[in-house]
């Protein structure tokens, strides 16, 4: 991108450098005229320095990412065995395991998926395809864009006030998954609307011209065509929800749970909460456990992400 030519006498180069290509071909357009004070070496140095610094910024970020993954991997690798996955948490680091956290996250994930897809995709269909333009829908728009920026801990306070206390669900899987659903519904709505927007209008017109109603059109043509995009958005939002600890801690889920939930009204723990719990203890041994937990959590999230990438590559470009 910046082919730098040694020290050719720049005076001998003619005015052709003023062409459109000059910037790309670079290197030789300095000091065209005695009236232009154009210290070529300084400019070249600046060019290299600039390129060097942005490259450095990028490599730093990448380096940080790999160091983070590597250091956690190195620290937690040792504990990663079946005992860790099959044991419940314990005060003795040597026996402590991740079982209740893993199953708690699975429970939360399943129920959050159901609630958030139902409400998120439903709302996106309504807003993008079926709604009239009026004050009602524009107030929904406003609230969605407001909600998308609300910190997750505030959702936790909402869940605490509404689900745990007002509705009396207690610190249950149900309350946790409803709270996480509220957190990601705006994200799912926005992603699903983008996917619906990408469905060509000609498909809707073809359907309407056959005498289909709006709902028939959406159900049989628009929604199926948008499913890959929606699924990608849903999975990415789910990955975010499964990594959240703050809203669950607000609900009071940071307790010792040594069992697998057997129903939606049981108390629960979850992977990020258990990791937080281990991290906040002073003993080094628990930190090792935390890093093992992080390996499992990140493995789980990366699995989600690869499914999303797979869906996008496999079905994404059909239309």
């Amino acid at each position, binding site marked *: 991108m910046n082919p730098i030519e040694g020290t050719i006498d720049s005076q001998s180069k003619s005015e052709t450098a003023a062409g459109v290509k000059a910037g790309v071909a670079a290197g030789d357009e300095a000091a065209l005229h005695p009236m232009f004070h154009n210290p070529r070496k300084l400019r070249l140095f600046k060019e290299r320095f600039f390129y060097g610094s942005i490259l450095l910024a990028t490599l730093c970020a990448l380096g940080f990412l790999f160091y983070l993954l590597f250091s956690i991997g190195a620290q937690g690798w040792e504990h990663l065995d079946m005992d860790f996955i099959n044991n419940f948490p314990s005060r003795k680091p040597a026996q402590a395991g991740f079982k209740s956290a893993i199953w708690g996250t699975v429970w939360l994930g399943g129920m959050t998926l159901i609630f958030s897809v139902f409400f998120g995709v439903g709302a996106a269909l309504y807003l993008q395809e079926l709604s009239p333009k009026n004050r009602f829908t524009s107030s929904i728009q406003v609230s969605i864009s407001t909600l998308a920026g609300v910190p997750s801990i505030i959702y936790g306070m909402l869940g605490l006030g509404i689900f745990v206390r007002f509705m009396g669900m207690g610190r249950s899987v149900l309350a946790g998954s409803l709270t996480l659903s509220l957190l990601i519904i705006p994200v799912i709505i926005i992603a699903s609307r983008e996917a619906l927007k990408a469905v060509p209008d000609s498909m809707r*017109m*073809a359907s309407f011209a056959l005498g*289909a109603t709006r709902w028939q059109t959406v159900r*049989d043509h628009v929604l199926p065509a948008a499913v890959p995009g929606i699924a990608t958005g849903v999975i990415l939002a789910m990955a975010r929800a499964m990594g959240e600890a703050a809203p669950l801690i607000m609900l009071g889920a940071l307790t010792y749970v040594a069992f697998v939930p057997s129903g939606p009204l049981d108390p629960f723990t979850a992977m990020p909460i258990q990791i937080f719990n281990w991290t906040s203890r002073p003993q080094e041994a628990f930190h090792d456990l935390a890093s093992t937990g992080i390996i499992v959590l990140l493995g789980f999230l990366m699995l989600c992400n690869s499914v999303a990438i797979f869906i996008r590559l496999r079905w994404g470009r059909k239309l």
Partner: protein
Amino acid sequence: MMSQKFTSPILQATNLNLYYGTKKVVKNLNMKIGKKTVTAMIGPSGCGKSTILRSFNRMNDFIDTFSHEGEILFEGSDIYKSKIDVTEFRRRIGMVFQKPNPFSSSIAKNITWGPKINGYKGDLNELVETSLRKAALWDEVKDKLNDSGLALSGGQQQRLCIARAIAMDPEVILMDEPCSALDPASTLAIEDLIHDLKQQYTIVIVTHNMQQAARVSEYTAFMYNGDLVEYGPTTKLFSTPDEKLTRDYIVGRFG
């Protein structure tokens, strides 16, 4: 301006003004379209011909800024005022679009979907065959009815779209520049098809191609800048047009 006299027109526009926002795109249109005729609408782009076509089956409803004055009668009743369900009435007026737009499902499903949602009680397999035969596509696709409609060539896709419209047993078929995205061979196939279809259906076709209008239609309407300049039998309009504007357009002085 002259207008064609049909004793029992299937479509009739009376004092029709069409607007996008405040812009009047069709001005005071009076036009009758006869049963089982092929009517071509020609004119330079932006003259309002597509807008008229799209108001015949109320596809303009989907454009927020669209509004209308005057009336359009379909078999005597005003489609914008009477209480017929708009979706039910669109079933009776088929439409073929500029770009082929088959659904992303199988060839057979492309055809059966419309009848199904409209409560068709007949034999669907038979309907697929008759519709594809009428659209002159049967021989090419009879062995791959379960293949995706999107796997066909452009010309085949457009005939599939015509078959899809025919399957609804419509009275009118509106065609919005149906050949503009096709190669010459496919265009020819579609034009032949229009010849066959006029035995049974009323066809209104918008085209920017004057030769095509001359080849396929019995009546031609020339639109310019929102006005219906001239409307009459195709042979007359192309040989001895009444209006100077029409003559200038036909000989290619503008547009």
